[in-house]
């Protein structure tokens, strides 16, 4: 993208790493942010008038299950870290190299290398080869690694390689074939359920092993009060642990499962209201570092089934931005922190020079109207499938212009 003509975005409100958005302009040249603040376009620049809207870093979506460009572009996402759970598992460098190229030219795809061969949780995959083929981190996939010995070896190896390990935190022995969190709702509906403590068990073990090995550990989703407490305490001790969540667990409780609606079948399952409140508190106090979409478009073959027979997952890319901006409107977080959660922190985890508005960073930029109202409609989504648990809800916030590497892509 280095051949792109310089672009200057004017009349915007710059979302900087701290503080309230500040009026100003931003100039991109040779694919990077060349200047920002109280600046004017240079001769020959293409000028884009932001008309008072936010100029923010493009979103970095850590842990998606499909490359779904229309949905990502709709949602202001310029980088997507792809989960290894693909038709061909990302457990070899050829698969990693292929998927790292698959977003070109208008989306960065950062493959997450499968931690173990075929994601079976038993034998380590060729992690160094995959790192050098473009994998930005390592992931255990949709599942937790049940064997503590394997997890120990994985973490110590990744500590040496300097790779973050992205893990799914649910004790598989306790969850079994559960599709819901144990509690009143699962009991009323007669759904196979597991105690929410399955998450805290997994988090406790993995924190202990991360502390032992010095590895950098990222829990892709932490959704319960107990597990968030463990993460909070580990961070206070200086353990290199981070946590993510999707908007679903911040905004919905297991009450949403009420009419067996399979669009609310998620992994981990929706939790009790008190756990949802704990997620909001953890977003506010810094315990949670990343909000991601968990984008996993699923058509009727996977979703128009009895609840327990349906596949988990939601199409989340389009709603990631507006739902997070809703947390700003609700006073849970401020704008700067919203974009740290959506872009800055995940970019830092992946080790990519993006996700913040700073001179020298890659010019992945979104012009965002944070107030623009629209209605989520599963029948009219840009995504490959409309399986959103937020169907028919009114939201606010849309990406108006999207730049990747200093080039307008949407």
């Amino acid at each position, binding site marked *: 993208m280095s051949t792109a003509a310089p672009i200057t975005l004017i009349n915007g409100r710059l979302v900087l790493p701290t503080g309230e958005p500040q009026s100003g302009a931003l100039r991109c040249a040779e694919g990077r942010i060349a200047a920002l603040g109280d600046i004017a376009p240079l001769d020959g620049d293409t000028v884009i008038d932001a008309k008072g809207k936010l100029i923010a870093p493009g979103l970095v979506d850590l842990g998606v299950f499909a490359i779904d460009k229309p949905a990502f572009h709709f949602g202001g996402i310029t980088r997507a870290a792809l989960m290894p759970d693909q038709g061909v598992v990302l457990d070899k460098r050829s698969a990693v190299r292929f998927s790292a190229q698959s977003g070109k030219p208008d989306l960065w795809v950062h493959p997450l290398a499968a931690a173990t061969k075929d994601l079976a949780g038993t034998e380590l995959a060729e992690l160094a080869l995959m790192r050098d083929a473009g994998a930005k981190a390592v992931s255990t996939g949709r599942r937790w690694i049940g064997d503590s010995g394997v997890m120990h070896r994985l973490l110590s190896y990744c500590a040496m390689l300097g790779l973050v390990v992205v893990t799914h935190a649910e004790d598989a022995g306790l969850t079994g074939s559960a599709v819901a969190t*144990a*509690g*009143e*709702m*699962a*009991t*009323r*509906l*007669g*759904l*196979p*359920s597991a*105690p929410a403590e399955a998450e805290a068990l997994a988090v406790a073990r993995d924190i202990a092993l991360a502390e032992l090995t010095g590895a950098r550990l990222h829990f892709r989703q932490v959704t319960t009060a107990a597990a968030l407490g463990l993460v909070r305490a580990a961070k206070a001790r200086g353990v290199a642990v981070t946590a993510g969540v999707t908007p679903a667990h911040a905004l919905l409780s297991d009450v949403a499962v009420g*009419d*067996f609606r399979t669009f609310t079948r998620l992994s981990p399952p929706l939790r009790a209201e008190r756990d949802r409140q704990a997620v909001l508190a953890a977003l506010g106090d810094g315990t949670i570092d990343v909000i991601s979409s968990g984008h996993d478009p699923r058509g*009727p*073959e996977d979703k*128009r*089934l*009895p*609840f*327990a*027979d349906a596949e988990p997952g939601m199409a989340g890319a389009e709603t990631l931005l507006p739902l997070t901006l809703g947390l700003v409107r609700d006073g849970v977080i401020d704008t700067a922190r919203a974009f740290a959660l959506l872009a800055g922190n995940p970019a830092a985890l992946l080790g990519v020079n993006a996700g913040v508005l700073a001179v020298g960073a890659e010019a992945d930029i979104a012009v965002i109207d944070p107030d623009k109202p629209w209605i989520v409609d599963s029948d009219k989504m840009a995504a490959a499938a409309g399986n959103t648990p937020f169907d028919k809800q009114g939201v606010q916030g849309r990406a108006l212009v999207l730049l990747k590497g200093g080039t307008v892509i949407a």
Partner: protein
Amino acid sequence: MTSANPTAAGRYPAGSAAFPHRDLTGLAGLAPWEILFLLDEAEQWVELNRLPHKRVDRLAGLTIINAFFENSTRTLLSFEIAGKRLGADVVNMHAAQSSVKKGETLIDTAMTLNAMRADAIVIRHASSGAVQLIADKVDCPVLNAGDGQHEHPTQGLLDALTIRRAKGDFGKLTVTICGDILHSRVARSNIHCLTTLGADVRVCAPPALMPAGIEAMKVTPFHDFDAALDGADVVMMLRLQQERMSGQFIPSPREYRHLYGLTLERLAKAKPDALIMHPGPMNRGVEIDSTVADLAGRSAITTQVEMGVAIRMACLDVLTRKGRGVEGWS
């Protein structure tokens, strides 16, 4: 024979307002008078079923499809007899569970039944919520004959009818339900039904078979069977599936019997005239001893089966009234 029961007057609104639902997918959320209406309607069929000539032509010309996606003998038979005694053409579709478990097939099957213009569809399926899923796709009344671990509403109704005929007013009764509460749709439907009608309901199971948050369904949970039985008016035992008492949830059948088997000795903890119930099929000598199951004057187990046919007749009659153009049921 409609509203034949003279005591019914004033208990519920007239016409379709007495039961303003197209389907019967569960008892959760039903109003007390809606349940009582179905129980009252069933009384006439109890009488009919005791006559030598047991057939009326109320549903003549109607097609009822029993679509059973899960094995069943007694419930299927009960629904079939109920439909036939009302004069309907009853067809049984016994779908092999393996071939219809995945993909669109369930919906496709539902659409196929719908296209054949059934006047009512009775469905049993191994997944919770499956019956609602089908009900949302078809144009005729749907009756849930058991969906996963969710509900089995006609069982709840027939149990309530059995209890009412033996004990009268629900408001004074303590009902103890003991067994695999976690996996039991019978327990859930009974809990909804009996608590709605005002009974005190106790549930008793070992911790591994007791669902979380059951207190929210307005029941009192017990692990100690003797304590749960104390002063009970009705003792309802649930079947425990063999595979669940062989080390998974319970160490062995005899250990289960040791803690939760209804023996004559245990039964003495309940009221002297306590009613003994079991939805069947029974594991004699495990959750219930034969001496208890066959106790004359106390065991209502065969009465439950009898009431099942009457309740299913009432449900089929009521749910097809709109389609048959019965006055007041538009």
